């Protein structure tokens, strides 16, 4: 039985994804153990934050600096982690809540879309519908490209060609992250049910 070329590519892709999943799980669990031993994260919301931050750092670390999004994500998530640790070590529990919000804000601030510049409308002579549709489509592409730049870590400073490559890699890494986290959650739920 011969495999078609596309089938071979799929198998290769599946194999590389499987190895990524294993690398991700290993790094994530190692980091969680490290954070857990030095900091007692007792509230559920604290644990959620540390789980999410460490998962992002692990997902980005296994890239070994090869992609721009991973370098940007490590920078963002590490900042969040430092602020988080500082607040966790403080004695005043009441102070944790505002800093938790600022951590989330710090991570989210990189992703909030920049203020849109108002396009100054210049009166143009009426164009045939075909050309009008093309310029509308062009504007839509530009607008949506900007949205994508805000979603991909470090995207704001990418040119369009890199943006596409980085996006594809980022999406695949996100899928790996989601798959592993979901498997872990299902397994834990199953164990706890017994």
């Amino acid at each position, binding site marked *: 039985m011969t495999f078609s070329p596309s089938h071979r590519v799929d198998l290769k892709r599946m194999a590389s994804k499987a190895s990524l999943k294993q690398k991700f799980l290993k790094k994530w669990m190692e980091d969680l153990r490290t954070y*857990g031993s030095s900091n007692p994260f007792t509230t559920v*919301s604290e644990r959620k934050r540390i789980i999410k931050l460490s998962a992002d750092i692990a997902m980005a670390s296994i890239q070994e600096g090869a992609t721009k999004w991973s370098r940007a994500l490590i920078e963002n998530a590490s900042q969040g982690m430092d602020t988080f640790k500082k607040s966790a070590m403080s004695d005043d529990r009441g102070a944790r809540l505002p800093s938790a919000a600022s951590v989330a804000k710090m991570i989210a601030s990189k992703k909030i879309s920049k203020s849109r510049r108002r396009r100054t409308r210049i009166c143009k002579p009426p164009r045939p519908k075909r050309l009008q549709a093309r310029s509308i489509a062009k504007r839509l592409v530009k607008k949506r490209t900007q949205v994508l730049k805000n979603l991909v870590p470090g995207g704001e400073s990418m040119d369009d060609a890199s943006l596409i490559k980085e996006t594809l890699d980022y999406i695949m890494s996100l899928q790996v992250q989601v798959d592993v*986290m979901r498997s872990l959650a299902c*397994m834990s739920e199953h164990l706890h049910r017994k």
Partner: protein
Amino acid sequence: MSSRRARQSSSSSGSSRISDDQIIELVSKLRQFLPEIRDNRRSNKASASKVLQETCNYIRNLHREVDDLSERLSQLLSTIDADSPEAAIIRSLI
């Protein structure tokens, strides 16, 4: 030789337009993630904006899933205890 606008925009660094070739590359690669994107014979720019929109939606969905899963896991993993059954299973997987 006709000079395509697409070629010109891709040759200038930092250009703000995505070339048609890049769109075709993106669509073919995204098809593995987004099966609902079909071959659009109409304007390349129209399918480009659709692809970008689907991509952004997909990334947002993935972000939300990670957030939901972190929520679930925070309730399940009270400690990554060395003795917990989860730890044993994880160790065997790594």
